[in-house]
């Protein structure tokens, strides 16, 4: 569809109005992304005034093929995928389930919506500190709870797999409210007449969900899936606050931060390697791009099929 914006000088007006937004996007988002791709081919330290040398693909070679460090990097990549799968699956399912519950026309649903959404408004640092206190192994609430059953745990400081599982749990707790709200918004767009007609026709609860709610929720399903997948692939803040740099727990997002800012060796004088971190960022970007685009392609086909 074409719009008429007038003639001569006035026809440039919409483009002129778009310009500030475009400039903002280029400066804040696209510009740094292009710069990251450039820096990934250098030995940049991120220090202002430091010499930057062109190293070609050396950072990529080191990340992917050099010694055991590359095996550790690939393990972090694998862990990132596991993290993404677990977070997306659980957060999506739980968010949908709770949205269905709090979308009922019952007293008190607004209170529950608020409670479930509350963690979203807290920052990652506050969320992390709250859970560190809760999981304090020397007499914290979780420790006392386990003690009732004669059990004990080091929680975040113990086995890496357990610490990793806790980060998954806490991220879901932190973000599930957003997923729920998007589903609630989607549920409220479904006309109530459809439910009434289905009830009159004698459809069961499952049939109503499968044939009315689920297909008509498609836009919300797509939005939530993409947000959950991309958000979990890029997660790193909670890893920093909850477990720090520990073998067996790093995901790619946190590895990028740690290598870029000299946090990997345990020494206070580790070097800054932002060129190398930029190469890792580009690898993460490609991962997000491939997964994100594939998922989006599948979801759009599904949406066209269902909604036309």
């Amino acid at each position: 569809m074409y719009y008429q914006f007038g003639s001569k000088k006035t026809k440039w007006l919409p483009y002129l109005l778009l310009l500030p937004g475009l400039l903002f996007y280029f400066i804040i988002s696209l510009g740094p992304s292009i710069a990251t791709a450039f820096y990934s081919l250098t030995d940049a330290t991120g220090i202002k005034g430091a010499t930057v040398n062109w190293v070609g693909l050396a950072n990529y070679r080191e990340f992917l093929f050099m010694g055991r460090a590359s095996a550790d990097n690939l393990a972090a990549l694998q862990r990132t995928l596991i993290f993404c799968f677990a977070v997306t699956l659980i957060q999506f399912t739980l968010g949908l389930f709770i949205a269905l519950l709090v979308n009922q026309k019952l007293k008190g649903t607004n209170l529950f919506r608020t409670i479930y959404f509350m963690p979203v408004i807290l920052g990652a640092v506050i969320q992390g500190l709250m859970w560190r206190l809760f999981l304090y192994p020397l007499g914290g609430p979780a420790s006392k709870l386990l003690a009732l059953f004669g059990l004990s745990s080091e929680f975040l400081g113990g086995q890496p797999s357990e610490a990793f599982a806790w980060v998954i749990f806490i991220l879901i707790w932190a973000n599930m409210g957003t997923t729920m709200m998007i589903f609630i918004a989607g549920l409220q767009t479904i006309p109530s007449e459809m439910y009434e007609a289905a009830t009159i026709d004698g459809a069961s609860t499952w049939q109503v969900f499968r044939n009315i709610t689920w297909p008509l929720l498609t836009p919300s399903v797509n939005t939530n899936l993409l947000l959950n997948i991309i958000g979990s692939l890029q997660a790193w803040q909670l890893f920093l606050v909850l477990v720090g740099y520990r073998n067996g727990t790093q995901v790619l997002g946190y590895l990028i931060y740690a290598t870029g800012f000299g946090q990997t060796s345990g020494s206070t004088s580790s070097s800054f390697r932002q060129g190398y971190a930029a190469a890792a960022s580009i690898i993460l970007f490609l991962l997000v791009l491939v997964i994100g685009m594939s998922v989006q392609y599948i979801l759009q086909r599904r949406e066209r099929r269902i909604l036309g």
Partner: protein
Amino acid sequence: MRKSKLFPIVAIIIFTILLSACGGSGDQKADENVTLRVLVHQNPPMVAFMETFNQQFTERHPNITVDMSVVNANDLSTVSQTRLSANDIDVLDIFGFANGAQPYMKMVEPPNWQQLIDANLLMDLTGQDFLANYDNNTINDAGSYNGKVYAINLGRVIYSGIYYNKQLFEQNSIAIPTTWPELVAACEALEAGGTPCMTAGGADGWPIFVGAYGLLGAMYPDQAELVKGLWEGTIKWNDAKSLEMWTKMQIYARDMMEEGASGVAGDAAPGRFASGAVAMFPGGSWYAPSIEAAQPGFEWGYIPFPGSDVAADNQYWFGKYDQGWAIAANTPNKDAALLYLKEFSDPANYQAFVDAVGFIPTQPTAKLNTQLGTEIAPFLANFQVGFEQYWIAPKGAGQFANPWASYFQPFGTDDDPQVLADKVQADLQAGLDAVK
């Protein structure tokens, strides 16, 4: 019409740019109001001392306001780098220069302090009067690079000692351990009496493995030679001597450390020890003021980690040059920053600093008059800079290429010293092979 509206706007913008450019000058008038931005790492006694010092400093110089930021030690290098790059800092806390690349190390990255100097972000302090207050070795070893001085170092610290609760030792009739078997026996006796043996600030990660650096030192007293040997392949993390170290580290992590130590914050560990909840606390000398502050009157002692079976091998202190001061090269408040360091370096003030923080002094006129000074005195002649200050891992080395006790359960996944030793050596060897 359009021109008449544009002109004042353009004039204001140009005037603002000119003003901000003038503000970038490094000089300021003596009575000009200045906000001095200072960055320090979290160490409660040091922060408390700095707050008092800042108050006195600003009373003497009413035109100067000190805006001090405190960050976790793990984040100091990151925050320093970003704030230096943004010209948002005047005086910064910097650890003693360490981890310089040695001739036998190949393809290693320069340490962050060297990167900052190479990028002209730290001010050259060479020739400043206050440098004469510090001993020459400290200036050369911990604050100089390419013949110029970029930092003054405020003290050495020991990280290979163990604090012990004198009362609990007496109650359980336990003698101060001087060998590894005696330490094991002491822990067993304490556990049998219902007192957990040790704690550490495991929530911060590093206190668990740094706590066992004394064990590493007992095995390899010459830590510079250890690093060289590892790089050249004459020492391996899975040879017989190292295997003994791993076996002892497992006992340290699994049997000596109290259950739940992984959740104790670094700042909270001294208080937990001082409360009498545990009998020992392997930790750095910088914790002594916190222990005293947590429980005044509490009776404690500090001994070298008895990692060897032979008492004579357990008479070393291992440590590092800790906090120092540097000035941002591009500071707009150069005079105030130099004045700050000059007054801090005044011998009377420095003595008060040492008394408060417990650092081993780097000014020859200062004395460590505290209880810690008495405790460490017998072995102070045997002080050595530790492994962490020399070690740089080769590129390509795996994540286990470190002598860290925290790899063992319950803090890590490993429970077999031989398997772990082989894994650590393989991770190191992969890096050495990669940089050949």
